[in-house]
């Protein structure tokens, strides 16, 4: 199901996103588990702070990486993060 561009996204209060020096990676921590993130996933999830909408997040990333046409990739990533429960939508 497509996510509306004006949906605000927030990181889950039941997970923690953290930089791990020893692994040189961002990770998501949750009860008795950990997921290692690649750079695009980490940069996207860091922007899920409850204030930005999906559209604003894509724009911010396009500016950050000096590129365009990221919509499909970011939407797919956000969709998967929602399914995992790492982030949630605010109406």
């Amino acid at each position, binding site marked *: 199901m497509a996510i509306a561009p004006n949906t605000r996204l927030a990181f889950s209060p039941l997970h923690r996103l953290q930089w791990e020096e020893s692994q040189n990676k961002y990770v998501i921590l949750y*009860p008795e588990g*950990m997921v290692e993130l690649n750079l695009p996933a980490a940069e996207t999830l860091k922007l899920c702070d409850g204030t930005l909408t999906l559209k604003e997040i894509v724009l911010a990333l396009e500016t950050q990486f000096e590129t365009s046409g990221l919509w499909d990739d970011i939407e797919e990533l956000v969709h998967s993060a929602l399914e995992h*429960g790492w982030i949630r939508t605010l109406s």
Partner: protein
Amino acid sequence: MAGSEPYPRGNPRWLLAELTYACPLQCPYCSNPIDYAKHSNELSTDDWLRVFTEARAMGAVQLGLSGGEPLIRKDLPELIRHARGLGYYINLITSGYGLSEEKIVALKEAGLDHIQISIQAPEVSLNNYLAGTESFEEKKSVARLIKKHGYPMVLCVVIHRENIHLMQEILEMAEELGADYLELANTQYYGWAHLNRDQLLPNKEQFEQAEAIAQAYKEKVKGRMKIYYVVPDLYEDRPKACMNGWGTTFLTVAPDGMALPCHEARILPGLNCPNVKDMSIREIWEESDAFNRFRNFEWMQEPCKTCPEKTKDFGGCRCQAFLMTGDMNATDPVCSLSPKRSVVKDAIEHAATSAKEPNQKPLVFRNSKNSKLLDG
């Protein structure tokens, strides 16, 4: 060639701190050592703070605070505050018994991330019988308070012959209490559970029925509650990759400071596990004989030695091999290729016979009196 990969190397990611062996409950499947009463000399607060710091510097990120009952340690908030400052994700693994709302709030403020509580059964009399303590109503109210204060909650139910027929009720209870995760932990037969195996081990039909109920429920609660199912390995035909490989990921520190590659390893003869009072965590992890003992494939016997699956399961569990065959270097007898596989069959048959006896052997409850008695 399959099976020719080197043994995995890595730093500890998981630190399990068993803060105390003291516990108000008496569960007859407890994984603590049977002779725990003689290891009652607990580490000081400063020792634990140093252990947390040293393990974190090596890359440990998940911290389990367990026991016994970790709530008994008066310095728990101080330990949590220090660990959170270091960047650990902190899991409190508790019975829930004696956890007041005030403490739930204080521990959150100190930086605790998650609380796992255990419930023995979905009804009062069986729960209290298994726990050896009137604790059912309190545990349920503690579960609700944990959710009220915004923690993620894991509800752990250890599964065995006394409660396996209540699988549906267990699942409904977990959903009703708002658990984010339900851990259905089929009993692993170490420690007190090994002692009580004839009274605890269900038969294969009971397992299959319970698993089918749990699998069906998974669909029903998808997106709301995750269900972890710890497989009953005596009914498998390949062993588990115990601890994700000896000395690759996990570090346990027992209440007396003994550092263990897994929380059962104290039973292995001649392993000479080091103590955190004598060595740094780095020395223990990199240099101690105990942590290097099975950190390769050289110790293996046949059929493991030439088996292509040895890089996947590392020969299974050393403690299970020792408990069931008397030889810690043997293939885990759960493996259908093990020459000692018959000990597993015998254990299953023995438990089935025992279940049919009109006067069943009573469960031996985990308490200091029994620990001292069985030690001698």
